[in-house]
């Protein structure tokens, strides 16, 4: 990467459109890949992606490098937008008396097997122990809090917390081997 993302964000904060274009080129595929795994339709993912970069443009000056990596900040903007979309879709669906669990189950299982590019990481996720994979899917791709996951799975909150830690350590090991 020729220019550090932090510097690009700083330039975006000053109103530099070229810096935004560079950030887009560098990170939009990774962000799009995450969002595609979260929402139901490609059009929704595209909408979320566009919305995300407009928000990055507007809020670049509020990015605080002391609080995390630029990618984390950006992808979480996208994930929040996607989660809001999922929640409103769930509400609409429940209004049609279709159980929310249907949808959650579908995301949890099918979406990880979506035939997308970057199948290698999909393989990394599928290599995780099932309880770790389920946890990351619920936390990262479905946006559930630790308490919500504890309630949904009937596990104690402490178990969810320690399992989150173990899941990430397993993921990190798998990614290290993967490189």
């Amino acid at each position, binding site marked *: 990467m020729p220019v550090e993302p932090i510097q690009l964000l700083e330039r975006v904060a000053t109103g530099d459109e070229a810096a935004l274009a560079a950030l887009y080129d560098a990170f939009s595929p990774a962000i799009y*890949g995450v969002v595609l795994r979260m929402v139901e339709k490609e059009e929704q993912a595209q909408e979320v992606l*566009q919305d995300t970069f407009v928000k990055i*443009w507007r809020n670049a000056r509020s990015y605080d490098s002391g609080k*995390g990596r630029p990618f984390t900040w950006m*992808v*979480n903007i996208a994930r929040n937008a996607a989660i809001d979309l999922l929640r409103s879709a769930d509400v609409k669906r429940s209004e049609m008396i279709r159980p929310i669990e249907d949808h959650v189950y579908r995301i949890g299982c099918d979406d990880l097997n979506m035939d997308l590019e970057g199948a290698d990481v999909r393989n*990394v*996720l599928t290599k995780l122990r099932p309880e770790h994979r389920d946890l990351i899917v619920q936390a990262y791709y479905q946006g559930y809090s630790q308490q919500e996951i504890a309630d949904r799975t009937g596990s104690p909150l402490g178990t969810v917390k320690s399992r989150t*830690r173990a899941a990430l350590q397993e993921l990190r090991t798998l990614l290290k081997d993967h490189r």
Partner: protein
Amino acid sequence: MNADEIISSGMLEAYAMGQLSGADARVVEQACADDPRVRAELDQIEEAFELQAMAAAVAPPPAIKAQVLQAVSAEKKGPATAPPVIPITRDTKAPRSWAWLAAAATIAFVVSAAVNVMVLSELKNVRVELARLENDRSVLAEELQVQRASLERSQNMLAVVSDPRMQVVALNGTAADPAAKARVYWDKERKAVHIDVLQLAQAPAGKQYQLWAIVDGQPVDAGVFDMGDGTAPIQAMKGIGNAQAFAVTLEPEGGSVNPTLEAMVLIGQV
């Protein structure tokens, strides 16, 4: 919580995924500022998510980039507005859709409460109605009891009156009570005697009417009887197998061994 505790707690992972509430997020941010080891651990966790996302990247349609840049440049030309701050952690405020759900739940609760009140009120009405019906039922049961007894008396009377073996002896008033009138139904073979009083003055207090059978000129006690409400129109008396006449006298309560002839009010020959 010290650095090691925070590192091993799973909080950093949750923070990276935007799962932490404001207070917990501040704990993590403070720990990152205080201890480089925490900061480094968080960075590695974030890097894991980043690597995962990079490896699973999907190129978006080219048109999106143009739309983003167009939107951004339109905003730049427009009036400058203070940009709202977007925190790195997920906004804990519920999305609008949840507000609708909450509103729907509130409406459902209010409707449910109203229905409960209505049902309770209805239940109270039903209980009152039930008590009323139960009262009616017991009144009717008493009534039925009375009617049954009355029917039984009537049937007994009818059985006596319609029995072909019964001999009817008409008793007429004496000088003591000329208007008096009665009938004795007598089944000689079965020694059954019944009296049917048609007209007779009320017995004074302390006195009762007594029926006698005249057998070979001698009076034989056939029992005392009452009159008025609660008494059968035709009353069974003591059994008599042989008699030439029947007579009724007014005697002290409980009857007498020998009739007071001066007090004879009814007499009739068989």
